[in-house]
């Protein structure tokens, strides 16, 4: 009986939350790296040198990195629904605004603003999934989320270059069409998040009482057993924890390779052909 409740609960939670969370992360990655495809024509139109383009790529992270931790702390305080909805709407606006850039300065500025707007989405969603899934399911659930990374490459790349083919439609450059078509759905999705995302299991009116009770009890038991072994860490102590630092190194290596591919592979393939 307990097994049946567990399976039914996890299934219902996964079906309700994962598609939305996955789609959000997918669109964030598409909006983040589509500049690599836009560069195939945009750099020439705007007169961007390779150095300026690289600076624009980095400008995103100048905004993104300092805002990551504060963003996650705000999410914890005001709730996932409102904060992730805000992130999606503002980053969608910034992503669409890439279509308005007209030179070096506006390119750097909009990339910087996009970084600020998007900051906190990925760690926020990991935290959010932690609220909902017991540890036995977490690797699969997190994998379902980060599956958006290769999915963004697999689907985002041909879509982006197809949109570049719209070049000249209504007198608008193809790369501008790409930013608009890929940015506007994110804004709409932000409003869907505000309507559909549920902050915590105790707010899940869409779960039957017995499923909700099982989930809350299981998560509370896991939390208690973790806290019995490990003391609670402050933010500053967590930042210097050797395990956190080791995982930072791992993610640094992963991020360097995957973002370099996202931002520069289209140009490498194009110029190497």
């Amino acid at each position: 009986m307990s097994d049946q409740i567990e399976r039914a609960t996890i299934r219902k939670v996964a079906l309700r939350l994962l598609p939305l969370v996955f789609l959000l992360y997918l669109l964030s990655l598409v909006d983040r790296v589509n500049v690599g495809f836009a560069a195939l024509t945009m750099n020439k139109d705007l007169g961007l040198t390779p150095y300026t383009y690289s600076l624009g790529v980095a400008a995103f992270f100048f905004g993104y990195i300092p805002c990551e931790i504060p963003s996650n702390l705000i999410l914890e305080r005001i709730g996932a629904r409102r904060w992730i909805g805000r992130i999606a709407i503002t980053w969608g606006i910034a992503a669409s605004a890439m279509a308005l850039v007209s030179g070096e300065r506006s390119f750097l500025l909009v990339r910087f603003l996009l970084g600020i707007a998007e900051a906190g989405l990925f760690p926020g969603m990991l935290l959010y999934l932690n609220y909902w899934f017991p540890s036995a399911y977490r690797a699969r659930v997190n994998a379902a989320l980060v599956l958006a990374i290769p999915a963004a490459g697999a689907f985002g790349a041909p879509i982006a270059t197809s949109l570049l083919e719209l070049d000249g439609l209504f007198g608008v450059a193809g790369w501008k069409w790409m930013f608009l078509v890929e940015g506007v759905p994110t804004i709409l999705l932000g409003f869907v998040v505000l309507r559909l995302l549920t902050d915590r299991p105790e707010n899940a009116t869409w779960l039957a009482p017995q499923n909700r009770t099982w989930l809350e009890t299981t998560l509370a038991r896991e939390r208690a057993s973790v806290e019995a072994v490990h003391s609670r860490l402050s933010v500053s102590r967590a930042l210097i924890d050797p395990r956190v630092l080791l995982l930072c190194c791992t993610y640094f290596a992963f991020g360097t390779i995957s973002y370099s591919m996202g931002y520069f592979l289209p140009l490498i393939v194009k110029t190497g052909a």
Partner: protein
Amino acid sequence: MSNFAVGWVVAVPSVVGIVAMLTGSYFADRIADKRRSLSVLMLV
């Protein structure tokens, strides 16, 4: 190479990545040793 073709070529590593991530996470939960799973995948 056209821009359109560039999009398809760039998509290839990501398609391989999808298969690898699904397989890796399935075995990580199954053997219940996430540290070993991470180390092996990083080594690959």
